[in-house]
């Protein structure tokens, strides 16, 4: 039997291969920085994303990938300071962009903005206050814009949303340089809303002339302009010569590749075909993090998000606060963080570290299985219970779910894992009779606690479909605190209210408070002035390439 020998030989070969393939170390960077003393103009920054850009219409683009392009193309009245990886919580402070100054009336209801002199669109047309009014009324009037509700405190906004009026009475262009907003009640986070990309000025004539093509042919005010978008393949940006800050941007352009799987992107980065890479698969992150030569080029940004396990607080056994607390004690945050390659920090509530109003004196629930068992017994579950936990069908989500399953098993809670796609999951958890126990997360739109707390825990957000309060937690005391904090104009008093809210949510535990994820990106050594931004994730305004004068990326010396 010759075939037997062949099979035996191939088995031996496989065994030899297994024995031989010890984890290979990561190669050091292939490139180095040229060593220029200061920012240098020119060059094109290349990066990739595992998902496509959906639209470039600022009234529609809400997903993070589209925002990567919409943000650099459309500037706003206020922007954020650049992030500095060396400073914790940097990047959250608002700075004037298209506005040169602004004033808020003492009652907190009137906002008056003065536009910067001489600002223009990327085709050279001047920007006037009316362009803001037009763009914001367009957002309100469009049923398919997800942003209308952010303006709900503006006088007359509800009428435009309802289609009763075309003119929003609370938004007035007093003259070409002055824009006034009147609110029906004070809204402390309103300034942040105006820093969202949808609040960018648009030229009515342009929007009307391009029609449906607005999603592909933007005319904006940002540091870059779109020169090419081959949908699903790549977006090419070029420097906007009319940008209001003549020093910026340093780059000539940006090339953004779409639909590149994460592991492929990492291989391209290693080969020098990309300048920045993010969302590293866990094994690749481990390799690069354990290679000292790469250490200076691994960048982290504050974790402006929250991940945990949401529970439907109306459904047994999760309707019992002691059960919810028990699950919080039974979940080891240390385990979760280790499973995330230390790329996360433990949470005590929904507000991420560095957020205004976060009570930094609260510590996460300690890992205390004994206390958990005791609470379960008090709640009438001395032997635990059986339940189903829904997570996304993604390798990392499944890993974390199995970690949670193992933790909860230790206190007698027997969890079956059910996997769902993201779309199915979103629909399912927004219904009162949907899965009662699942993964939950929230990503920040702007750095204000109202963006987290109002959205996820006010009883107003409970609905039969697409409820954003998907723990269906209703508490009149909490509602009252949330409403008071939303319109409070004194920062100290407002922070005090959020501290009370944080403590209440900590005790009531509508979620298993688990962790805040860090954004981790790796750059080539010659990429300077770049850091993942806590709000935008990506900004390229201050980025420059420290490469040879002719633009060649300098090679590192061969390793000895």
């Amino acid at each position, binding site marked *: 039997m010759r075939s037997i020998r062949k099979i035996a030989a191939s*088995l031996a070969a496989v065994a030899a291969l297994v024995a031989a393939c010890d984890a290979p170390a990561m190669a050091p960077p292939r490139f180095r920085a040229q060593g220029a003393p200061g920012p240098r103009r020119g060059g094109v920054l290349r990066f990739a994303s595992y998902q496509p850009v959906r639209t470039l219409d600022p009234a529609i683009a809400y997903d993070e990938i589209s925002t990567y392009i919409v943000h650099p193309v459309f500037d706003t009245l206020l922007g954020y300071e650049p992030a500095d990886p060396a400073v914790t919580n940097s990047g959250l402070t608002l700075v004037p962009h298209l506005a040169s100054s602004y004033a808020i009336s003492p009652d907190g209801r009137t906002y008056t903005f003065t536009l910067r002199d001489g600002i223009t669109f990327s085709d050279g047309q001047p920007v006037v206050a009316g362009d803001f009014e037009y763009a914001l009324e367009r957002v309100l009037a469009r049923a398919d814009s997800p942003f209308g509700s952010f303006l709900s405190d503006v006088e007359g906004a509800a009428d435009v949303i309802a289609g009763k009026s075309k003119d929003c009475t609370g938004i007035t262009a007093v003259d070409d340089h002055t824009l006034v907003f009147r609110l029906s009640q004070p809204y402390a986070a309103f300034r942040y809303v105006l820093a969202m990309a949808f609040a960018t000025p648009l030229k009515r004539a342009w929007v009307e002339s391009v029609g449906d093509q607005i999603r592909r042919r933007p005319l904006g005010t940002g540091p870059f302009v779109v020169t090419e978008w081959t949908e699903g393949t790549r977006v090419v940006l070029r420097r906007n010569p009319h940008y209001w800050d003549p020093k910026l941007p340093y780059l000539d352009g940006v090339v953004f590749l779409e639909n590149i799987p994460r592991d492929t992107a990492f291989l391209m980065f290693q080969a020098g075909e990309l300048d920045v890479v993010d969302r590293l698969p866990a094994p690749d992150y481990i390799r690069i993090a354990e290679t000292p030569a790469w250490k200076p080029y691994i960048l982290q940004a504050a974790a402006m998000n929250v991940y945990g396990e949401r529970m439907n607080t109306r459904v047994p056994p999760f309707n019992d606060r002691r059960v919810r607390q028990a699950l919080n004690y039974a979940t080891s945050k240390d385990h979760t963080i280790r499973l995330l390659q*230390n790329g996360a920090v433990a949470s005590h509530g929904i507000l991420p570290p560095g957020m205004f109003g976060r009570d930094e004196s609260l510590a996460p629930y300690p890992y205390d299985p004994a206390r958990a068992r005791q609470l379960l017994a008090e709640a009438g579950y001395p032997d635990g219970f059986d339940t189903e936990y829904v997570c996304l069908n993604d390798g990392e989500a499944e890993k974390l779910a199995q970690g949670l399953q193992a933790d909860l098993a230790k206190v007698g809670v027997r969890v079956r894992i059910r996997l769902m796609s993201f779309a199915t999951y979103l629909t399912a958890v927004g219904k009162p009779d949907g899965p009662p126990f699942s993964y939950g997360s929230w990503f920040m739109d702007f750095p204000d606690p109202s963006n987290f707390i109002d959205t996820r825990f006010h009883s107003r957000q409970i609905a039969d479909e697409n409820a954003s309060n998907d723990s269906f937690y209703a508490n009149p005391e909490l509602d009252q605190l949330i409403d008071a904090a939303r319109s409070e104009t004194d920062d100290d008093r407002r922070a005090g209210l959020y501290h009370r809210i944080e403590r209440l949510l900590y005790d009531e535990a509508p979620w298993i408070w688990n962790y805040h994820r860090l954004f981790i990106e790796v750059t080539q050594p010659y990429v300077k002035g770049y850091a993942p931004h806590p709000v935008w994730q990506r900004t390229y305004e201050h980025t420059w390439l420290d490469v040879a004068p002719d633009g060649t990326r300098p090679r590192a010396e061969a390793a000895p």
Partner: protein
Amino acid sequence: MRHARDRALRRFAANRGALVGAALVALVVAIAVLAPVIGGRDPVAADIDHGLTTMGAPLPPHGGEWLGTDQLGRSVWSRIAHGAGISLLVALASTAIALTVGLVVGLIAGYAGGTTDAALMRMVDLFLAFPFLLLAILLAALLRQAGIASGTAPVFITLGAVSWTTMARVIRGKVLSLRERDFVQAARAMGASTARILARHLLPNVGGVVIVLATLGFAQMILAESVLSYLGLGPPPPTPTWGRMLYEGRSYYQTAPWLIAVPGVAILITVVAFNLLGEGLRDAFDPKDRR
């Protein structure tokens, strides 16, 4: 009959490939049966504190864990050993389903002939028109979605439901030739009922074919189970199936190659073992077919 069987056994014993296959099958079965004893740690118990590096990376094979740990700090050896039982049970259950359906359809079609045969065989053609895996993926996803069955059940129901067609065809062919043989004609002439002819005369005579088909099918089922698990359509986590181990370990192919090498080799050995055994049995039962 006894004489023929002895001859088959002798032929089998003289076939080295068949013996190697049988030995490997015995080894896999022994591991599956003894898993609770020899497997060591609980296969689903994550050990994040001790089974991972401080960076959360799996531990390579070492003294305590001779096959290393996986991405949750679980024992790879324990999961392989316990996974053997699951793989074998799924293969057994799906083969049993495929065999039962295939046997019934094949016997009826072959013996009845005519319109019944034509109708049943067109149904088989209909099933065969779909690629095996595509149909399996569709069915597994539907069963999971509908929540009709849980655990390993959707997997073996799916595999049984998509693989009975081959059995039915081969058995029909065999019966077609058998029903014209003298002993069947004689039984019919003596007034034996159809049921009796099927059960007492035809069934025993397709036995050899059935055993060969089942053994070869078994190997295919093990492979198909791992494919479904690899696509996330197998038993839900943390069930230690070999396919799921491959699926969960795939992104670690550079940093922790044992996570895919170990289950991969386990699948390879088991499939080869059942194929060798099946081929040996075929040669033993049907020496004319020998290559």
